[in-house]
Structures are given as C-alpha cells and as structure tokens.
C-alpha cells in the first residue's frame, strides 16, 4: 500500500514500484505530478503556520477571555483555618474586682491573690480565667460604708469588670455569708473579723477557708455560663477541647440548655416587638398599652441595649376567629370554664387571617399576643394546667386575658389591667432572647449573654467562611465578584478584632465586631450574583459555538496532520 511505500517527492503520489491495488488501477496510473518546488512547500507551510498562529495567539485568548467567569482572589487557606478554629484561641478573662473597705491593704491584697490562685486551680473550664484586682478606691473610707454610696463605688470599677466582690463586715455571723445583688454585678460578702484573722496566723502554703468560700460562690456564678459555652462548642463542632465535660455539662443541664437553644431566637442586633390585642368580638377596642409598656417593659429593654436594640409596635385586631384546624374551646360545665386542649395550642394562632406579618427591616419579629375572649367564651384557660399563657418557640408568646364578666365597660383595657400581662410578656421575652436563668443577678446574666453571643457569632461567622471556601473550591465555574472578596476580608478583620476583644476582656466591643463579622460573612455567602452562574458549564459554551468551531477546526487540523506526515516521510527518505 501507499503508506508502506516510500514516496517520491513527498506528496500524494503512489510510487512506481508500489504494488498496484488491482489491474484496473494499475492501468489507470499514467502520470505523476512533477516534484514540488521547496519554495511552494515552504509557502504552504508558512500559511498553515500563520493560520494556527492566529488561532492560538488571538482566537484562543479571546475565547478564554470572553467565556471565563471572574473569580476574585479569596484567602482560602485562612478561611479554612478560621473554620477549623485554628486561628482564634478562645480565652475569656473574668475581671473580678475586690472591694474591701475597712480591710487592711495587705489582707485585701492577699485575699485577691488567693482568690485568683484558688479559682484557676480548681477551674476545669479552659476558656475562663479569673483575674482578680483590688479596687483602687481608698480602702479606709468611711463614707463608702453608707448604703447610699453603693452605686458610686461601682463606677470606680472599670467597664471590663465582670463581677465586683464587696466585703461587708457583719458581727453576728460566724460563717461567711454572701448575697448577689439582683440588679448589679455585685457579690456582697459578709464577714466577721475572725474570718480575716485566720489569714494572719496562717502561712501562705495553707489554704484560707474564707477565700475558698468566696471562690465557691464565684464558681456558682459562672457555672451556667461555662455549661452554655461548652454546649456551644460541642454543637458547633469546634475543636476546642474541654476536660471534665461531664461535670460542667451533666445531662440534666444539657437538656435544659438544649431546650433553651430551641426556644430562643438566633442572635440579631435588632428585634422588632409586636404586641397585638386579638378579640373575637368588637370589644375591647382600646388599650393603654403605651403607658403599660413604658412603665413595665422599658427598664428591661434598656438593660439589653449593649446586646440588641428593640423596636415596638402595637395593634388591635377585632373579630379575630380561630383557625378551622383546631377544635376550639370546650365548655367544662363542672368548673364553668372554657378550656383549650394542649394539642390546640400550637394551632391557636390563625396564621392565615391574623395580620402578624414580620416587620420590615433587618432583624426578626417577636410577637406577643393578648387574646381577650368574647363575653360568651369567658373564662378561657388551658385544660391541663389551668394556665393562660404559653410560649411559642422562636416566634413569641401568647396570653389569654379573661375579663370579669360583670365588669361594665369592656371597651378599654387600662394600664392596671395590663400590668400583669406585660410582666408575663417580659418573662417570655427574656426566655425568647435566651437569657440564662442563673445567676440571680440580672447584670451578670446580661454580661454572660454578651459573652456567649460573641462566641457563638464568631463560631458561626467562621463556619460560614469555611462553607464559602469549600463552595468556591468545589465549583470552579462559579464567579466570585470583588464584593465577596471585600466582605471576606472584612469578616476576617472583624473576627480578629472580636477574638482580641474577648482576650482583652472588652466584651461589648468584641460583640460589636463579631456582629459585623457575621453580617459580612452572610453577605459574602449569599451574594446574589454568584448563584446565577452556578449552572453555566463549559459544555454549554462549546455546544453553542460548535457549528462554527467544528467546520473551522477540521481543515486546520487535517492540514497540519498532512504536513507533518509529508515532512516525516521526506526526512525518512533524506535520512
């Protein structure tokens, strides 16, 4: 065959001595074209080369340029590190200030020293570290003893102070007594002179029982917070190792924390509170809700200002009917009560008809519903418990207000009527916001909530970063606009600040940074322009242009193959 035969001048010419295919063919081969000029071979090859050069140098870059999606550079490794929890070593220093007016400076100093020593020695929880300092107020100031000066003494403590331990002398008690202030972060410890005396006799290597007692009290204060944080770390899959986990997070407490977590809202910087009055009749058509809220709810909301802000709106909805999916109240003739079955509570809110749409703007809406049954349906209670209020997890609270039947004017609910109602709502609000139930001091609970929110925000922003990193690696076709890269940089920057803020004990600042980091991370992950590009694969692009590329590519490639063959044959012959 022709391919086996060496070719004369390199072209389509079967050789003379090639074996003819058959007789007819052999008879037909009469002439062969003259050998081609080297110049024309060179011309042809340069033509083919220039075509290819245009395709490679111009066409291909153009194609790549016009069909690539823009991918901004992301610090993928750093993002993954954040997600793995390698960058931020969580550490929460607890600044405790000891205020010991009337105690000699040496004793007070030693007390502070032993407190820090004993606590950190007994502490299983690696994240909490106690730092005890002495109040820099003059120690022997008699004016501080007067009860009126309590508040001013607090002002002396720096804003980073978590807890103030205030020593107060008491004569009668033989054992040291302590009491948490219900509003301020102050632990009052009552001591008798003999408690302090112990220290004078004892040497530094023996333990001081008085100090031990106070450490025990402080541990009680932070026990719930430790459990909350431990729960948080476990649930977020964070690599933080916690020894003695079972002691901190025993099953009963774990269950309680899990229940709290399912009930409470996800953290948001702004919550919208909506108070609605629903009634199946035309009355009451007015309520003094503004006055009642200002009086009974406002102080609570003010205490939350470092964590979240609140907007309030109220409305009255008349002629509100139950949804058809529930059985409705049943009349219990014995107790002369209308009763709601427990199974009906979940369907009590008639979502289709009651206008409880979420508020506009960032942040979730918490609904509080006051239901005043009509005159015929009064009194209405829950069948099993006889209660009148319940909580709907991550949504809000409901309360039934049974008005006296013979009360003459039903058209208006006064502030006095609403007092108890608002108290119940306030209670429901604290549990919807995830406020811990202990310790007894409200200020401590708030600051504990600040810390746990900060850590949970850092964890969630980090894991969002990790998801984004994995997503961009998995989908090479996805476009990454510059805004995403900016958001990621912002997130990392704020995460670092939050982490440092935690370490420095500046919890409010840390929360602010963590909040921004979370918002930026969400913004980066849910960038709308990234989503549209997901399903635009390379195959699609090729398929659209195949009618053009196919017919153009075939002659180009064939020409090259032919030339290469000819060139090879020529070389073999020459060699």
């Amino acid at each position, binding site marked *: 065959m022709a391919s086996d035969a060496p070719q004369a001048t390199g072209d389509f010419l079967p050789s003379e001595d090639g074996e003819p295919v058959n007789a007819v063919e052999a008879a037909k081969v009469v002439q*062969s*074209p003259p050998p*081609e000029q080297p110049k024309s071979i060179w011309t042809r090859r340069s033509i083919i080369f220039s075509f290819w050069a245009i395709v490679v140098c111009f066409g291909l870059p153009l194609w790549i340029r016009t069909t690539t999606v823009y991918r901004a550079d992301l610090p993928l490794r750093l993002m993954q590190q954040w997600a793995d929890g390698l960058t931020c070593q969580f550490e929460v220093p607890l600044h405790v200030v000891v205020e010991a007016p009337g105690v000699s400076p040496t004793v007070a100093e030693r007390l502070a020293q032993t407190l820090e020593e004993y606590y950190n020695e007994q502490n299983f929880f690696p994240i909490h570290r106690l730092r005890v300092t002495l109040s820099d107020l003059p120690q022997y100031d008699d004016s501080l003893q007067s009860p009126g000066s309590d508040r001013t003494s607090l002002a002396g403590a720096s804003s980073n102070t978590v807890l103030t331990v205030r020593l107060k002398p008491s004569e009668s008690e033989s054992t040291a007594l302590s009491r948490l202030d219900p509003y301020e972060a102050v632990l009052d410890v009552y001591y008798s002179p003999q408690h302090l005396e112990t220290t004078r006799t004892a040497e530094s290597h023996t333990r001081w029982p008085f100090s031990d007692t106070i450490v025990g009290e402080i541990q009680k204060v932070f026990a719930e917070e430790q459990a909350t944080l431990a729960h948080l770390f476990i649930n977020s899959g964070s690599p933080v190792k916690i020894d003695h986990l079972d002691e901190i997070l025993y099953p009963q407490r774990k269950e309680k924390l899990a229940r709290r977590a399912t009930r409470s809202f996800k953290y948001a910087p702004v919550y919208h509170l909506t108070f609605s009055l629903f009634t199946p009749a*035309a009355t009451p058509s007015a309520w003094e809700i503004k006055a009642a809220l200002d009086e009974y709810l406002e102080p609570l909301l003010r205490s939350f200002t470092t964590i979240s802000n609140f907007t309030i709106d109220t409305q009255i909805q008349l002629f509100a009917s139950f949804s058809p999916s529930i059985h409705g109240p049943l009349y219990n003739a014995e107790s002369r009560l209308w009763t709601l079955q427990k199974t009906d509570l979940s369907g009590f809110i008639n979502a289709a008809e009651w206008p409880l749409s979420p508020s*506009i703007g960032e942040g979730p809406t918490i609904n509080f519903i006051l239901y005043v049954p009509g005159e015929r349906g009064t009194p209405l209670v829950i069948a099993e418990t006889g209660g009148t209020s319940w909580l709907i997890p991550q949504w809000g609270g409901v309360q039934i207000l049974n008005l006296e039947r013979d009360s003459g004017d039903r058209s208006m609910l006064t502030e006095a009527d609403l007092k108890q109602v608002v108290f119940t709502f306030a209670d429901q609000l604290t549990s919807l916001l995830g406020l811990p139930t202990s310790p007894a001091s409200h200020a401590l609970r708030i600051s504990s909530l600040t810390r746990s929110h900060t850590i949970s925000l850092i964890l969630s922003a980090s894991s969002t970063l990790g998801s984004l990193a994995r997503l961009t690696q998995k989908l090479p076709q996805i476009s990454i606009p510059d805004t995403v890269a900016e958001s990621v940089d912002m997130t990392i920057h704020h995460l670092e600040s939050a982490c440092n803020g935690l370490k420095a004990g500046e919890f409010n600042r840390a929360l602010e940074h963590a909040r921004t980091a979370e918002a930026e991370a969400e913004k980066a992950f849910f960038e709308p322009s990234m989503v549209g590009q997901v399903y635009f694969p390379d195959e699609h692009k090729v398929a659209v242009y195949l009618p*053009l590329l196919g017919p153009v590519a075939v002659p*180009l490639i064939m020409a090259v193959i032919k030339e290469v063959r000819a060139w090879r044959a020529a070389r073999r012959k020459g060699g």
Partner: protein
Amino acid sequence: MLLSSLLTLPAAVLAQTYTEHLHLSPLAQTSHLLAAFNFTSTTPLPAYESGHFTHFPRSLAQILQHTKTRELHLRFAWGRWDDEQWGPRPRMGRREGGTGVEIWAWLDGQDGGGVEERWSGLVNGLSGLFCASLNFIDSTRTTHPVLSFSPEGTHADEVRGLESLHGTLPHEVVCTENLTPFLKLLPCKGKAGISSLLDGHKVFDANWQTMSIDVRPICPGGSTGGECVLEIQQTVDVVLDVERSMRARGDPIPRPRPIEELECDGGKVYNGGDTCYPKVKEGEMGWSLSRIFGTPVRGNCHLADGHADPDITLEVPLDRIVNVTNAQPLDLGNGQSMRSYRLPDHPPGQYTDLALPQQSLNQAVVQPQPPLYATRTITGSGQQHGGMHARLHNPHPYAQTITYFESLPWFLRPYIHTLRVRNSETHEDVKLEKMFYTPAKDRERGTHLELMFTVPAKGEVELSYDFEKAVLRYTEYPPDANRGFDVAPAVIRILPNNTNGEGAASSQHLGEGQGSYIRTTSLLLPLPTPDFSMPYNVIILTSTVIALGFGSIFNLLTRRFVLAEEVPVSKLALRIKAIVGVARGVVGRLKGAKAVEMGGDAVGSGKGDGVGNGAG
C-alpha cells in the same frame, strides 16, 4: 353631585375614629347600580409615629414608616366607566385609577435623598401586601408629575422636601387576591358591617370597579396648631349589572335561558315559537341588597367611638318604595332624594337588608352630564410609526381649564415637534398655558408629558402627536409579546373654576382644591415582535457561512494544483471502490442466479454491468 360631599365628611372628625359608609345609587335609565363603599379610620399622628397603631393597619403602616411616605394613593381598577350612560364619575373621579394599578405618593426626600430607593421599597412592600405586581414599577414606569396631582393632606412647611412620584401598571389584572388583603386592612375584616357585603365573586363580576387606599395626614388647625391625625380612607366603587348580579348563585355558568322564561314583546308578530323580541323594560328594576350581593349586611362595625353617622345611604327618588329590615332610618334633612340608614347596635349580629320592589315612576330621573368626555386612540399603521390622538369634549356652557397627563413607556418615543392641540371646529391651535415634558431615556425612564390648557365652552379639543416604536432587546419581551404592550391611561384633571395650578396646589382642603379627574382607557400598542427562535437560527446560519468561507479559502491557499490526470488516487477512494465492486459482483451474481431460474437471457449483461461499474 351628592357623592362628592361624602369626601369631606371624615375631615371633620378627629383622633381615634372609624366610620364606614355605603352609598347606593341606581344609575338612571340603565339597569346598573353604583355601590360606593367607604371606610375611613383615623389615628393620632404621634401614636402612629411611635408604633402604636390601634386600628390603623400595622402591615401598611410599617411600609409607610419604613419608606418615609407622607401621603399615599393606591388604586386598583378594572373595567370602563361608561360616561355617556352613567354620567359623572363617583367622588368626582378622585378615588379611581386607570385600568390596572396606579399609585402616587409623596415621599420625604429631605434627609439625604434616596427617594428612588424609598419608592422602590414602597412599591415592593405594597406588592407583597396586596399580592399585586407593583414591584414591576421601576424607574421606567415612574414619573414625577407636577400639575396633575396635589397633596390632599396637611403637610407642614416640609412640602418643599416632599417629592411626588407616580407609577402605573396598566397590564395588571385586578382580582380577588387583591381584595382579600384589602379587606384585611379593615378593623372588621369584612365580617361585620357593610364590608360583609364585599365578596370577590360580586365585586369582580361588576362592569366597572375600582378600589382605592388613601393615606394622608390631617391637621385641622393648620399645619402648626391642633392635634394632627393620620387618615386612611379605603373605598370600593362598583357598578353592578342588577339583572346579572341577581341571577341564581347555584348556576354560576352563564347559559341561555329557556324560551319560556324570556320576557318577549307580545306586540310583535312572530313567525315561529323560537323567536323573541325582548320586551322593553318598564319602570325601575326591583332589587335588594341580599339578592345583589348574595348576603344581607351582617351586624355592624361601630367601634364605640360615639359617632352616629349613617352607615348606608340610598339615592333614589322620593316616591320609590324601600322596604327596610333591621335598620334605623336617619333624617339628614338635606337631600330630597337621599335616604340614610344606620345599622342597629342591639342585639349584635343582626342581618340588615334593603329591598326595592319593581316600580314605575312618573318621572324619569335625568342623569347629570359628566364634566368632560375624553377618548384616546392610537392611529397609524405599520411596525415603525404611529400616532396618538385624544379628543376632549366639553358639554358644558362654560370653558374648563384642564391638565392632561401622560406617562408613556420608553419604547414609545413621541415626536414632540408634532404635538398639536387644536380646536376641532375652528382648527385653530389651542394655547398651551403650561407644559412639562421629560423626554424618555432608553431603559431608564419613560416619557412624562403634562399639558395645561382650556377647553372652550361646548367645544372640543383634539390633541395629537406622532411617535416611533422602539425595537426591544430579545430578553425585554414579555411571554405574551404578540399581545401588544399596554400604555397607561391619560389622567385628565379638571381644575376647579377660576384657579390655576398654583392655586390648586396651595389649597389644602380636599373638597376645594382638587378639582375632578377623568381617566381615559388604557391603550394596546403593538410593537415589532421578532421570531424568538431567531438567535439560535442566526448562530447556526452565520456559523455555517463562516465555516464554508473559511474552508474554501483555506483549501485554496494550501492545496497544490496539478493536472487532472496527475491527481493521485487516495487510499480511501480505492478501498471504497473495491468494496463497491465486490458488492456489485455479489448482487450481480444473485441476479444472475435468479435469471437462470427464470430462464432469462439477461445474465450476460448483468454481469457485464457489475464489472464495468466496479472498475469505474
């Protein structure tokens, strides 16, 4: 007109109030009934601003607060008001909108601008609230009218900081899903009082219907003194065909009545039993609320605010008999033909009905004439050019100053140099007193055209201009592109006599300064519509042509030219020829065998053919 006086009713009341009112008036000489529902509620402005909404709908209030909307007017309309038969429009046309959805509002633009963004927030919020496509009102459908609308509420000195924006969606089909959220905004939610009559089946079966929501602040002591209130007025106006509405509910499908039930004119001569000349109706039709709306009025919606306003008014001649069940007639003492009723307070949950039997009246009621007749049409033919032609006819013996407002989509490009406003009879140009024109920008904003001129007494003015139709981009066509594109109705405002634009704007009182409104019907604009498979065809075709051209040029450049005899035979061709030859041989042999069997002589020639072809 008596109806117009209804507009000023709620302005007198203050603070936390709610009134509702239904006005019924049969339209003279037709079998149509106009039912005008009005629900007005006010709330003190400070309470509203601090979020204590009481009866003001919270969902709407939040949108308004979020977007800093100071005054809102929202309209849903469907159908055509028949000027010639039905007379002037209810509420002087101030509570009606153009076909589809129309919205205009005054937004606070003082603190740092961003009005466009707030407007977009407003329409998007309302879109969700009313289940309408209001979110499609983007910058191309938004205009800033100057003359045609003026604020109805009291706005302090901030009027300068307020911006008026206007948007229309003529394509929107108004239906039940818009009425349901509308009713939810009412304190009684359509469960008690006159709103219990509002049922989607009836409202949207009407010949003409319009729903409106108007929110405005009112300060009775002027903008500075007195306690301000925020008023929300919701109205539903429907023109019902009495006969059609009263047909049995059990048989909702319209089908021809059996011949026995038809009322035929016995005075005519009939050739067969299957023909019928309809009998001319005599006197007034009998009707009742419960038969027209399918239900009587249920209970009342008096919110214990001490008002004793009538709930229902009925405008029929005095000698018409009215049977009232469970309602208390009020004597207003002002109208000869107006009767007022208040729904009973005790016991609650009663049903109230009004029934008017069929009756022949001695004197026919004369329907008053509308302030102006207006028609607007698209002229011209072809895909590229067209013209707009509007006729405004003044039936009254006095001249009327009007403003004419058009907001045109950007793909309709008017040639303003061709704009002619002429008197139809004298063919003289009418002097334009004012003109505001904002040219369109492709894909950014539409045309805004506002004219102010006077229509002479008993005269007619023609307005015309030419326009060019733009070619849209492939993706800009809607799914039903061949239907055409809706052009929003023109809004004609008849200024109150002896005032000009500034006078109207400065006068705050609703009754005085607003004048009355008329809207033309919306138009359908056919645009050049491409074949939507075109891009793929173009890709394939151009690719093929380019590939062909490239292939031949490339071959010309790289092929070597030799004599035909010198062309070497390629291996492939040789092999194919060999295969074909073998195949022919086999076929020939088979044929030969057959021929032998049949005893034919064609054997030789068959064989010869096979060989010859194989060699060739």
